[in-house]
Each structure stands twice: as C-alpha cells, then as structure tokens.
C-alpha cells in the first residue's frame, strides 16, 4: 500500500477525495510541499474552485514546478475536474489563465443546454456512468474518453485526467480509483 498525496491549492474540498482513498485502504495526505509532490508514489490534483486562484496557489507554493518535474520523470498523476483542466495549456476561465501545460489543448466554456452540466452520465468507451459537475471542458487531442460528445478523460504520459468526480461516483468511481491506484 502506497501513500497518496492530494495536492492542496487552497480551494477547500479535499475531504471527499481523501474519504474515498480511505475507503480503498490508502493512506493520504493533503500537501503543497514540492518534495512530497515530486516523490510520492501517487499524486492526485483534485478539483474545486477557480482556475486562476488554483494556478496562483500552485505557483506560489512551488507545487506547479513539482508537478512538471513529476510529469517529466513519468510518475503517475491523476487530475480530477478542475485538476484535469489545470494540466492543459490554458483555460478560458476567469478571462484566461495559463495552466501547467502537461497536456495539449485548452479548457473552454461548455456549450450545453444547461450549464453547469450536473449529474450522472455514461463515459465512452469505458461504459460506466460517473458524476459530473462542470461549466468548462477540455478541448484536447489527448482526449481518451468522452461523455455526450464532450471530453471526459485525457491522458498523456503519466498524467491521467478526468472531467467527472470519481470520489462522488459511488461504486463506479471507487472502482475507477482502485484501478488507477493498483498500477502503482
């Protein structure tokens, strides 16, 4: 069993992610400490808040560079919702924010009948149904799964990012998290 670092960027709700990890028998810590982020067996970049304040926080604490180093060293990172969008080149949110640039593509304002897009939706080609709550979405060539035609998961190198919230997706979400963690 390896420890998981949940990256702290001052936006509040890391509790649900940690609760899901505890449920799966994993020990987790919330931290913005660059050394921990670079070296931990597994790192999760969670997702609540706004892109601008999240990036400012990651830059100030040195977590942004630690995430880039970690990515360059091919060590696994899971980005959730905003945490996935932060790995793109930039986001349209808050008038435009430069992001980590681990992935190709941008986070753009959703084009959907109702925004935010809230609720459970199938992710293809995986087949499972997960919980979404978002107003922005990735437009990325690194997209590996979609939901209702929208990017639902992106992958490049050791970074996997998902638009949905596995920690809020009941059994499907726990199963997904377990499959991510079982590889480390």
């Amino acid at each position: 069993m390896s420890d998981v670092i949940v990256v702290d960027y001052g936006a509040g709700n890391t509790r649900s992610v940690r609760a899901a990890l505890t449920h799966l028998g994993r020990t987790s810590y919330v931290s913005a400490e660059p050394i921990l982020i670079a070296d931990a067996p597994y790192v999760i970049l969670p997702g609540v808040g706004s892109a601008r304040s999240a990036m400012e926080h990651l830059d100030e604490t040195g977590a942004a560079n630690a995430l880039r180093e970690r990515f360059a060293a091919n060590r696994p990172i899971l980005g959730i919702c905003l945490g996935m969008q932060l790995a793109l080149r930039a986001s349209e949110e808050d008038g435009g924010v430069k992001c980590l640039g681990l992935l190709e593509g941008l986070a753009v304002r959703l084009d959907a009948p109702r925004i935010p897009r809230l609720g459970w939706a199938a992710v293809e080609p995986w087949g499972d149904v997960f919980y979404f709550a978002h107003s922005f979405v990735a437009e990325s060539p690194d997209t590996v799964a979609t939901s209702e035609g929208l990017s639902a998961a992106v992958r490049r190198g050791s970074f996997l990012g998902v638009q949905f919230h596995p920690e809020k997706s009941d059994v499907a979400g726990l199963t997904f998290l377990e499959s991510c963690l079982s590889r480390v």
Partner: protein
Amino acid sequence: MPLARLIPCLDVAQGRVVKGVSFVNLRDVGDPVELAQYYSAGGADELVFLDISATPEGADTMVYVVERVADVLEIPFTVGGGIRSVQDASRIIEAGADRVSLNSAALATPQLITDIAARFGSQAVVVAIDAGESVVYTHGGRVATDIATVPWAVEAATRGAGEILLTSIARDGQRTGFDLILTEAVRDAVDIPVIASGGAGSAQHVADALRVTDAALIASIVHENPAGLPGLRREIEALGIKLRPLMERV
C-alpha cells in the same frame, strides 16, 4: 443532458433527522449519517440536507454532521439552512459538502449568490425557492414576499446560481404530484438545472416531473418506506425514465 436525478431530502435539527422516517433495520433512525448511507445504497443519485434548527449551535452541529457524512458518502450532497454569508458557505463546503443551498439569505442579499459562486464555482450554489401562487415565500413558506417566482429564478441564475431547487408550497407534503406548470415555467426561463420539489406521492408523479425537468426531490414518499427506494427507482424506469445503473458494492 445527464441522466435524471432522484434526490432524497433529509430535514435535520440539532444533528438529528426529524420528520417521521419509518425504519426497521437501522441502529439509529435519527442519525443523518446512517440514513444517508442507507439511501445511497438504495440508489439515491444525490442527497439534500436541510438544517431546520437555524440557531448558532445548530450551525456548529451541522458542520460536524457534514464532516461525518462526507467521510462515508460517495455521492454528491447539498446542505441548506442557515447559510447567510460566504464564511458560512465556506465552513459547509470545507467540511465536505458539494453544494450549499441558499433561500431567505439570497432574497435578502442577492450578492451572496455571486460571492459564493466566485469563490467555489456556480456548481456549488443552489438557490432554493419556496413558491406560492405567484410569489416567493420565506420562513418555511409562511411569509409572502412581493417577489415574483419566475423573475427571481432568472435573477438567481444571472447572479451565478448553478441550480434552482423549486418547491411548490401548495403541493409540499400533499403527495398529489408535482406542480408541473410551475416547474415548466421556471425551467423555460433559466438555463441552469432545476430540481422539482413538493408533491411526490408515487412513481408516476416522479416520472412526470422528470419528463419536465432535470431532477426530483423526494421526502415523505421515501421516508415512510426507506427500503422501498430501489423499487421506486425500478417503477420510475418502467415508466420510461432512464436513471443511472446501480453497481453492486464489492
């Protein structure tokens, strides 16, 4: 659009579930955490907790309830009641709630909607509207305002609300079906999701509401027979509404 959502609502006072929940196989019927887990296992898509105690002590107790719920629940949940400031909302969200629901405080200070949305995102802000014949009510549906329902819903959405929780006061607790006309009027006026509330008495009522809008709040229909939630879901699905598939816990 994502799948239709079925959302049980729990009223909580001083950390205990109030209003008759009929129960057989729980250790503690009044414990919101146990009931939340039970409904989650039964197929709730989300939960709403309303703190009806509305006292400072009640607020502290609610934060503790939210923390305990967040530690065991793997579906989203909303918390309402007594949230009057960005700081109140922060405490609830940092304790693990996905969304806060604002009612009277949003009517008194509409800027509160904008301020909470700016900090936590629109998806974290629900505006609850208790609707009478044509105007919005406060104080649990007892005091009429001069604010018309549909324009208020539009203003809430414009100010940054991510969802409207629309309760028909006349239908609430009556189990005679949702007010579909009211629900449709609000749904057509806003471009954010709308939860229909008040009046669920049968699977047919819920299915009718879910044909009109994104989600339905249920209370007495499920509290009277909590073990009946999976069956209720199957009945709703048999009426042609697609809900999320439930996976076995391993």
